[in-house]
């Protein structure tokens, strides 16, 4: 038996998407439309197919913007090709290739369904074959879903490992995770998809501080809710940074410089790093407010991003692995503009993906453009902030591979600081 024949006998592949009853019809409709479409995808009368084509249109647009950015990186750096964004890239969509190929289009649709509805196969296949209806079902589930219901779901699951609410399976997912302190595996709860999480985070940011802190405290106490605690903490921090520091009883937390080791730095602080740093000309967290501003970092223009220091930017790109928000501050005396990158976490160690450097360089390029318009020669710097609860004394931030790449024109490297938010009163 030849080795080839042997391998074909010993490996079997069972195709899930392709085994769905709707697959053949859907594929042939999609194929016809893509063939007709050429460079511009056509519109049809069928709502479901139109929704699908809209997803493909948007993805095509996103890829164009990404390619334009990477080309600019290349143009500005000669032969130093921008590899950082793709070094560790395992994203299906980036491997998909031309979108007019029906197989690639299907990959994009599956990827989109996972971003909208999560990774439960039933939802994903419904999200491909019946996108409009699946969106409606999830929108209905989310319509009246609030923090109280989220807490109730977690409580029920913590007590009896069951989900009670009729809508809960559209909002949350449970998954096993390895033991942290115990001898056995546990179950965790998280929002089902990136987009569902975004919607819930948006609604959390509109809540008052007190119920959010209470929710955070509850999720921290129950083991199933530790992932949710991270999201609530992020919502609290975003409120704090945009609304300004309000506490009379606690002094405003100050940034502490993190030590760095290695050419791709591992930033860290420990219990001895308690002295606030005075290197910064601005307060990343301050008593004054900054207007919370959503920015689509995959859009052609970052039109909402200005040089004003009264904005707190929260990207709408929902899957940014390196940072959660950013601000821009200017110092006329040193002719410096600083882009502050915030990563918010309740874990003691944080990593990230090289894909995160590309949007940072986009912001830098945009800021440079704004400065050129003003005939300013100010230099643009990036500073990284790890924002975490003060209940642990050691924190690490491992910068992803690609730190030293694509830095000739827009150097995304910078110092790192840690801001410990007081939670000990909980």
């Amino acid at each position, binding site marked *: 038996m030849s080795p080839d024949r042997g391998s074909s006998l*010993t490996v079997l592949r069972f195709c899930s*998407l392709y085994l769905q009853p709707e697959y053949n019809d859907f594929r042939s409709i999609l194929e016809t439309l893509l063939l007709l479409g050429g460079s511009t995808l056509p519109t049809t009368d069928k709502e479901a197919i139109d929704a699908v084509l809209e997803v493909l249109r948007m993805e095509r647009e996103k890829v164009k913007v990404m390619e334009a950015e990477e080309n600019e990186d290349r143009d500005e750096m000669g032969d130093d090709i921008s590899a950082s964004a793709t070094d560790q890239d395992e994203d299906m969509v980036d491997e998909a290739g031309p979108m007019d190929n029906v197989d690639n289009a299907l990959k994009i649709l599956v990827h989109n369904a996972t971003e909208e509805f999560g990774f439960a196969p039933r939802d994903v296949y419904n999200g491909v074959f019946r996108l409009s209806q699946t969106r409606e079902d999830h929108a209905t589930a989310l319509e009246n879903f609030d923090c109280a219901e989220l807490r109730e779901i977690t409580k029920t699951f913590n007590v009896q490992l*069951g989900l009670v609410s009729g809508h809960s399976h559209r909002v949350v997912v449970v998954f096993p995770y390895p033991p942290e302190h115990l001898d056995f595996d546990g179950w965790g709860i998280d929002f089902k998809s990136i987009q569902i999480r975004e919607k819930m985070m948006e609604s959390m940011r509109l809540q008052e501080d007190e119920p959010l802190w209470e929710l955070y405290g509850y999720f921290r106490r129950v083991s199933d809710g530790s992932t949710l605690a991270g999201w609530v903490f992020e919502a609290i921090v975003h409120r704090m940074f945009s609304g300004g520091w309000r506490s009379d009883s606690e002094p405003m937390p100050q940034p502490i410089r993190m030590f760095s080791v290695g050419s791709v730095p591992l930033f860290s602080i420990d219990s001895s790093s308690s002295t606030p740093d005075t290197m910064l000309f601005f307060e990343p967290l301050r008593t004054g407010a900054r207007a919370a501003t959503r920015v689509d970092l995959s859009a052609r223009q970052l039109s909402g991003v200005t040089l004003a220091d009264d904005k707190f930017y929260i990207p709408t790109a929902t899957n940014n692995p390196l940072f959660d928000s950013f601000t821009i501050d200017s110092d006329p005396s040193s002719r410096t503009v600083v882009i502050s990158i915030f990563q918010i976490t309740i874990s003691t160690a944080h990593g990230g993906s090289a894909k995160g450097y590309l949007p940072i360089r986009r912001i830098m390029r945009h800021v440079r453009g704004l400065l050129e318009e003003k005939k300013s020669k100010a230099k643009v710097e990036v500073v990284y902030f790890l924002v975490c609860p003060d209940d642990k004394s050691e924190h690490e931030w491992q910068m992803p591979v690609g730190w030293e790449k694509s830095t000739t024109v827009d150097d995304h490297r910078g110092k790192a600081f840690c801001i410990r938010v007081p939670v000990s009163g909980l």
Partner: protein
Amino acid sequence: MLTRLISAGQVVLLCGTNYIRLFYQDRVYVRLAQFGIEDLPERKGIPYCPIWALIDVDYHDRGPPLSHTSNVWPIQVSSPNPVRWKSWVKQRRGAELGMPLWNTGELMAGYVFSLLSLSAVDPGHVTR
């Protein structure tokens, strides 16, 4: 799991909401689910030789109708809620396995496996 066991020549019982299907020697035998999974064929000369029973039915709080005499080796898929499986898991000292979420590759292409990994299957059950 069904494909995997059939590929390994095993006798398998697939328990659905309405029908129970027995996969035995290249044939499929069907009976209504209401008749349960008793009275299954036994292997001659071997008093205890259970049949794989893949159970994918929501029995709510009751759990699947497995009695002491059910000559099956159950594999039940369920939510983590113990009321759905504790009736038989404790009695038969079953293992509880938490399945991770699917990833994009699996959603596209399903499960990829090697037949070589089937060595764990009991060779006494191979029917061909």
